[in-house]
C-alpha cells in the first residue's frame, strides 16, 4: 500500500483536482438541500461532464457530489422539516425541533461535524479494506463471478421496494434491457428490431436519465406548484456547541460511522437504512432517551454520521467486484470504465496509483465538505427556496444535453424519453426502479460469466456449485433471502401490532 501512497498523493494534489472536488461538493450540497432533488439525479445529470475528463478529476467531481449530498439533505431537514434527500429523514426528527428551539446553526454544525467524521471514517475503511477484498476477488473464476452477480442482484431486488417478487421482476427487466444489442460472445444482434443504432446497445447513462431524472419531472404532476418559503433569518443563533454536547456526540457518531460502513458494504442497502438503524441504536443506548424526537444532539449525530459513512463503504464492492453498493455508485462505474478502469485486483495493482489517489481523494472530499459547510451553509439554506418554475425546465435541459452528449446523437435523447415513459408506468405499478438500474449495470457481466462458465463445463450447470467460493455465495444468497423474507414479514406484523 505504502508504495502507492506517495505517487498517488502526487497525482491527487493538483489544482485541477482540488477545483473539481470543490465544484462537486458545492453542487452536491446545493442539489441535496433542495427537497425533491436527489443525489442520484445530480450524479446522473453531471456524469456527461466527466466524459471529457481523465479518471481522477472525473471521480473526484462525482465523489464530491456524492459525499456532499449526504450532508446537503440535512440542511432542509433541519430548516424546514422536509428532508432534501430520503436519507436525511432521520436527521429531521431531532434537527428540526432543535432549529425550532432557536438553535438552527448549532443543529447544522452538529450535522456537518458528524457527516465529516462519518465520511472520513468510511474513506479510511475503503483505503484499508478495499485492497484486501480485491485480493480475495482475484481468486474468483467465472462461475463464482456469476454467483457474486446473482448475490448482488438478490439483495437489491429484496431490499428495494415493498415486495421481493416485484424486485426480482424489475431486476429481470433491467438484465433483459442489457441484452439489447450485439451478443457479447458471438456479436449477433439481439432485439434490435431492425434499428441499426441499437446494435451498439443502450447506454446505461442515457437509460438512467430517463429512469431517474426525467421521470422526476413528470412526477411534478403530483405536486402543486409553489415555493417553499424558508426564512433564513431564523439562523440567528451563534451556533455554539457546549463541551458537554461534544462529549455526548462522540459515542453516537462513532457508532453511526461503524453502522454506516457495515451497511454500505452490503450491496443494495444504502444511506437511508444506515441512518435509521444508527438512529434507533443510538436511542437504545442513550442515557437521555426522552430527548430523542425533541432536538437530541445524539440523534442528529447518529443519523448524519451513518448516512455519510456509507459513501466510502459502497465503493468497496464496486471497486473490487464491480458490484455497486448503491444506485449512485452504480452510475460512477460508467465514469471509471470510460477511463479503462475495470473493477478487480488489477485495478489495485496495475492502476494502483490512480486507485489510491481516488481513495485518498475521498478523505480530501470530506475535508472540503467541512470547509464549505462552515463557510457556505447560509447559501445552501437559501437555495432551498428556489422556485419550481425555474428549477424544472433547467433540469430538463440538463437531462437532454446530458443524454445528447453521451454519443453526440439525438437518438439517445429519444431513448431517454422512452425510458421516462417506462419509469412512469413502473411507478404506477409500484415497481422499484433501483433493481432495473442494477440489472442494467450488471447485465453484461452476469451474462458473460454465466455463458463462459457453461462453455467451460460443456453446458453442465454443476459448475455453479463446483468450488468452495460458489458454495459460500450460495449460502449467502440463501441467508440474504431468508433475512429479507423475515424482515418483510416483521414489517407486515408491525402495523397490525400497533393497531
Amino acid at each position, binding site marked *: 500500500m505504502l508504495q502507492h501512497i506517495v505517487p498517488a498523493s502526487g497525482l491527487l494534489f493538483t489544482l485541477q483536482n482540488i477545483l473539481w472536488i470543490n465544484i462537486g461538493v458545492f453542487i452536491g450540497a446545493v442539489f441535496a438541500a433542495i427537497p425533491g432533488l436527489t443525489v442520484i439525479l445530480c450524479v446522473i445529470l453531471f456524469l456527461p461532464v466527466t466524459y471529457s475528463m481523465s479518471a481522477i478529476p472525473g471521480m473526484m467531481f462525482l465523489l464530491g457530489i456524492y459525499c456532499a449530498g449526504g450532508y446537503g439533505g440535512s440542511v432542509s431537514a433541519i430548516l424546514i422539516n422536509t428532508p432534501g434527500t430520503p436519507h436525511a429523514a432521520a436527521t429531521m426528527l431531532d434537527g428540526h425541533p432543535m432549529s425550532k428551539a432557536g438553535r438552527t446553526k448549532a443543529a447544522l454544525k452538529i450535522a456537518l461535524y458528524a457527516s465529516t467524521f462519518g465520511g472520513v471514517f468510511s474513506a479510511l475503511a475503503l483505503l484499508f479494506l478495499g485492497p484486501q477484498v480485491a485480493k480475495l476477488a482475484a481468486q474468483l473464476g467465472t462461475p463464482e463471478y456469476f454467483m457474486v452477480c446473482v448475490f448482488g442482484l438478490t439483495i437489491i431486488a429484496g431490499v428495494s421496494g415493498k415486495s421481493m417478487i416485484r424486485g426480482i421482476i424489475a431486476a429481470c427487466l433491467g438484465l433483459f434491457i442489457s441484452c439489447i444489442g450485439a451478443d457479447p*460472445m458471438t456479436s449477433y444482434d439481439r432485439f434490435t428490431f431492425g434499428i441499426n443504432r441499437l446494435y451498439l446497445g443502450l447506454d446505461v447513462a442515457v437509460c438512467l436519465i430517463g429512469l431517474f431524472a426525467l421521470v422526476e419531472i413528470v412526477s411534478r404532476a403530483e405536486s402543486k406548484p409553489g415555493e417553499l418559503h424558508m426564512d433564513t433569518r431564523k439562523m440567528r443563533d451563534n451556533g455554539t456547541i457546549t463541551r458537554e454536547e461534544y462529549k455526548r456526540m462522540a459515542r453516537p457518531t462513532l457508532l453511526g460511522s461503524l453502522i454506516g460502513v457495515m451497511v454500505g458494504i452490503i450491496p443494495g442497502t444504502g444511506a437511508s437504512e444506515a441512518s435509521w438503524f444508527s438512529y434507533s441504536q443510538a436511542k437504545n443506548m442513550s442515557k437521555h432517551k426522552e430527548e430523542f424526537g425533541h432536538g437530541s444532539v445524539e440523534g442528529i449525530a447518529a443519523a448524519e454520521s451513518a448516512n455519510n459513512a456509507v459513501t466510502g463503504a459502497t465503493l468497496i464492492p464496486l471497486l473490487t467486484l464491480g458490484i455497486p453498493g448503491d444506485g449512485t455508485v452504480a452510475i460512477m462505474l460508467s465514469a471509471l470504465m470510460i477511463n479503462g478502469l475495470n473493477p478487480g485486483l488489477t485495478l489495485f495493482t496495475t492502476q494502483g496509483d490512480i486507485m489510491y489517489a481516488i481513495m485518498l481523494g475521498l478523505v480530501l472530499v470530506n475535508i472540503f465538505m467541512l470547509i464549505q459547510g462552515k463557510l457556505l451553509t447560509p447559501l445552501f439554506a437559501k437555495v432551498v427556496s428556489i422556485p419550481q418554475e425555474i428549477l424544472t*425546465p433547467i433540469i*430538463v435541459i440538463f437531462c437532454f444535453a446530458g443524454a445528447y452528449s453521451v454519443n453526440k446523437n439525438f437518438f439517445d435523447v429519444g431513448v431517454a424519453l422512452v425510458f421516462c415513459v417506462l419509469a412512469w408506468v413502473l411507478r404506477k405499478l409500484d415497481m422499484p426502479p433501483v433493481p432495473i438500474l442494477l440489472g442494467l449495470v450488471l447485465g453484461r457481466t452476469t451474462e458473460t460469466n454465466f455463458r463462459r462458465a457453461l462453455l467451460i463445463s460443456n453446458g453442465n450447470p454443476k459448475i455453479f456449485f463446483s468450488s468452495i467460493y460458489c458454495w459460500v455465495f450460495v449460502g449467502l444468497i440463501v441467508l440474504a433471502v431468508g433475512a429479507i423474507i423475515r424482515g418483510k414479514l416483521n414489517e407486515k406484523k408491525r402495523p397490525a401490532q400497533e393497531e
Partner: protein
Amino acid sequence: MKDKMDKLGARLREKEIRIPVDLTAGIVFFLVAGVILLLMPSQVAVSERDVVNGRAFPTMLMALMMICCALLVGKELYKIAKKKPLEYKTVNLLVEVKALIILAILVITYVLARTTGLFVVGAVFCALAFLLYFRCTKPLYYVITVGLAVGIWAVFRFLLHVRF
C-alpha cells in the same frame, strides 16, 4: 380560459381509478415476458455449434419473470378466493392529465431540437412551456429561466465542445 381550466381541473381531481396493483403488475409483466419469448426466434440468431447460445440468458430471465408474475397473480387470486382485501393503488385523473402535458412538453422539446438541429431552440421552448404550465406570471422568472436555458446550451456548446 383560466376559469374553464380550473373547473375542468376540479372535475378531474374528483375522478379516481383504483387499480389492483399486484394483480395488474403480475398480468402485465407476464404478458411482456410472453411476448419477448415469442419474439426471441425472430430477434436472436443462433448457430447450431453454440454450446450456450444468445437466447439462453434472456430465456432464463423471462422464465424467471413469468414465475414471479405467476406467484404475484396466484397470491392475489388466493386473496380473492379467501375474500381478503387486495392491494389497490389509486390513480387520480388530474395527475395523469398533468403528467401527459409534461410528457408532451418533453416530446415537443425533443422534436424541435432534432428537426431544427439547434438544441437551443428546444431549450428555450422548454423553459417557456414549463413557465406557462406552472402559470407563472412573474416576468423576471421568464428572463431568468430563458437566460439559464441559453447559458446551459452555451456551456455545453463552447466549453464542453458538444456540437448541437
